[in-house]
């Protein structure tokens, strides 16, 4: 049997920064690239055909059949939502279900499926081991928020993988990312960072470049299975706050995280998602040895370097002089940003 190479790739969720980066890197490597999302892409890419499509609707199955997609990269999964609300469940569980149904149709052309998942699936608690291997998902945990949604989602994916032996399924559990728009990065960027009294957990981080690289390698290579993806080493929460130049304020009480989250929302207007509250009190670290042995590759940035990169980005916003092919993308990006800021000010007024 000849090894399978992806020809017609469908990328869901291309409008989030990770999706855009993956699309940019995949475009020269595959003959046909299609992207779909509900929002406009942040940067225009000539090699990619963009479709407005919602993964929560059955249109995704029609797309797969009409376009003869052989590889689906499902990145429209919220692994680090800013709020715990219904839309996370809708996107993660219902959206993934639709994508799986679309891929599982009889005589489906799909031969490879890559699903994004997150470190939040393990949750974080005092009884957990120091490192999570891929088989340590805790089904008995009374899971809340995004942990429960991701558990439910991965259950659907594993059922799909059992039923469709022709389709190789890769699940990438991406570590906590600290690019500008993740909840952890926003939390660490505060000038005074409220922490839980008497807790200083270990954090394991993943740089955005490595996340995109891992997805691209999963598409091009043949690695079925579940993989943890995160940087080497750990950073303590106090170290991370120090690197960002903030001050740790141990003001949140050590017991009753639910109450302090409620108080933060009522008094300070800050909505701290449950998985973030668990991580900044107990921390969670994954064991990525399976990724290393299967992919023959490990993330370039260690946790500490990812943290340093965020701190550096905070000091100076570096915009390099655009080379001519990127000029158009930059213009689109700046226009989008202006529009977004305009919308923000309009909604405030």
């Amino acid at each position, binding site marked *: 049997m000849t090894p399978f190479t992806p020809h017609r790739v469908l990328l869901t969720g291309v409008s989030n920064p990770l999706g855009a980066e993956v699309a940019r890197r995949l475009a020269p490597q595959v003959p046909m690239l299609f992207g779909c999302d509900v929002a406009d892409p942040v940067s225009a890419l000539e090699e990619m055909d963009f479709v407005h499509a919602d993964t929560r609707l059955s249109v995704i199955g029609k797309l797969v059949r009409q376009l003869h997609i052989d590889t689906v990269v499902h990145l429209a999964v919220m692994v680090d939502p800013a709020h715990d609300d219904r839309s996370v469940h809708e996107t993660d569980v219902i959206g993934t279900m639709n994508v799986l149904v679309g891929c599982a149709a009889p005589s489906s052309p799909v031969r490879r499926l890559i699903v994004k998942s997150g470190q939040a699936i393990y949750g974080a*608690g*005092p*009884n*957990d*081991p*120091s*490192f999570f*291997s891929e088989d*340590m998902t805790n089904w008995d945990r009374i899971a809340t928020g995004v942990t429960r949604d991701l558990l439910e989602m991965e259950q659907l994916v594993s059922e799909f993988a059992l039923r469709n032996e022709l389709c190789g399924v890769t699940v990438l559990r991406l570590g906590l990312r600290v690019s500008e728009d993740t909840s952890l990065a926003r939390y660490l960027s505060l000038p005074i960072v409220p922490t*839980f*009294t*008497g*807790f*200083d*957990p*270990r954090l394991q981080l993943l740089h955005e470049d490595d996340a995109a690289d891992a997805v691209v390698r999963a598409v091009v290579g043949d690695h079925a299975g579940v993989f943890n993806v995160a940087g080497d*080493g*750990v950073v*303590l929460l*106090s*170290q*991370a*706050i*120090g*690197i960002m130049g903030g001050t740790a304020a141990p003001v949140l009480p*050590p*017991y009753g995280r639910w109450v302090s989250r409620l108080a933060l929302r009522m008094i300070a207007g800050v909505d701290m998602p449950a998985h973030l509250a668990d991580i900044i*009190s*107990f921390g969670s*670290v994954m064991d990525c040895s399976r990724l290393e042995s299967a992919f023959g590759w490990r993330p370039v940035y260690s946790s*500490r370097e990812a943290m340093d990169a965020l701190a550096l980005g905070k000091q100076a916003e570096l915009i390099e002089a655009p080379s001519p092919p990127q000029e158009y993308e930059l213009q689109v990006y700046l226009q989008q940003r202006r529009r977004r800021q305009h919308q923000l000010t309009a909604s405030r007024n």
Partner: protein
Amino acid sequence: MIAESTREERRRNSRKAEIVAPRPGFRLPKPVRRLQRQAPMYALQAVSALSVRLRELAGRDVIDLDRIMEVVQFIYQQRELAHRGPNYAVDDFGFDPQFTESFLGVFKALYRDYWRVETTGVEHVPATGRALLVANHAGVLPWDGTMIKTAVFAEHSHPRHIRALVASQFMGMPVMSWFLRRTGQAVGHPDDTRRLLERDELVLVFPEGTRGTGKGFKDRYRLRRFGRGGFVSTAIRAQAPIIPISVVGSEEIYPMLGDLSPLARLFGLPYFPVTPFWPWLGPLGMIPLPSKWRIQFHPPVEVAHLPAKAAEDQHLVMALADDVRDTIQRGVYDNLKLRRGVFL
């Protein structure tokens, strides 16, 4: 940042350093400031001169300069810790050697002067490579683990850090959660034990767990059940020798008369002890009594010749666990006989 290559470029791009104005406000005169800076050195010189004089007068050491230097070292280590900022590395378990070693001065003082620990058989601990240390557990607070760590660091020819395994409920307690990890402890989970042993570390386990620390004073020096022998199967899988350790003296530091379990349940503790001093004297009741301690390291039990399949053999595992438990219990009785009195 790219460094400029030539001297001309450096000169062209360099800027004059800003002249920093002295801070406004009152400053002490320069000789006083210099004296302030050098005061610790002068004090040490004065103390050493005094100790020499006293030795000439009395004919023996009156002031022990080593002890004083240890105190000074401790103060300077703490200052260095406070000034290092976020620029230090911890290992994947969150262990910070510099932080841990800064407390060794205090623990060595407790080891030598307070509990007057006599350690035998420390040469059974390997200088390199992995080993699983198994000890009896007693005393309300885990001072026995601290003293075993200090013993290997103070007495062994190759001082090494020991990584102890703690009950997971301590990881849910404030302060404990980070302090235990920072000083090299890990969760008592088979997976953690395996990982530590695979890194060729010395791993210390207390198979009795909180059943050992929370037992009453009338049950002192009677070992509890040794878990389900999980430590033996982990050692067989990792091919690590098991070194039994008997600790005597830890039972008397907090004579536990009773256990207020409703209060313990309220605070999420494994037990709430009542001793003659706690909780009646408040924080003063947490001061351990100065009992006389003995620690004996027994010859290692080799498991390297056993096949990995033996870890599944429940009969063999339980037999080995019982052997280890018997060795420790016998060592406890032997050392109790060697001890002249509880506080002597």
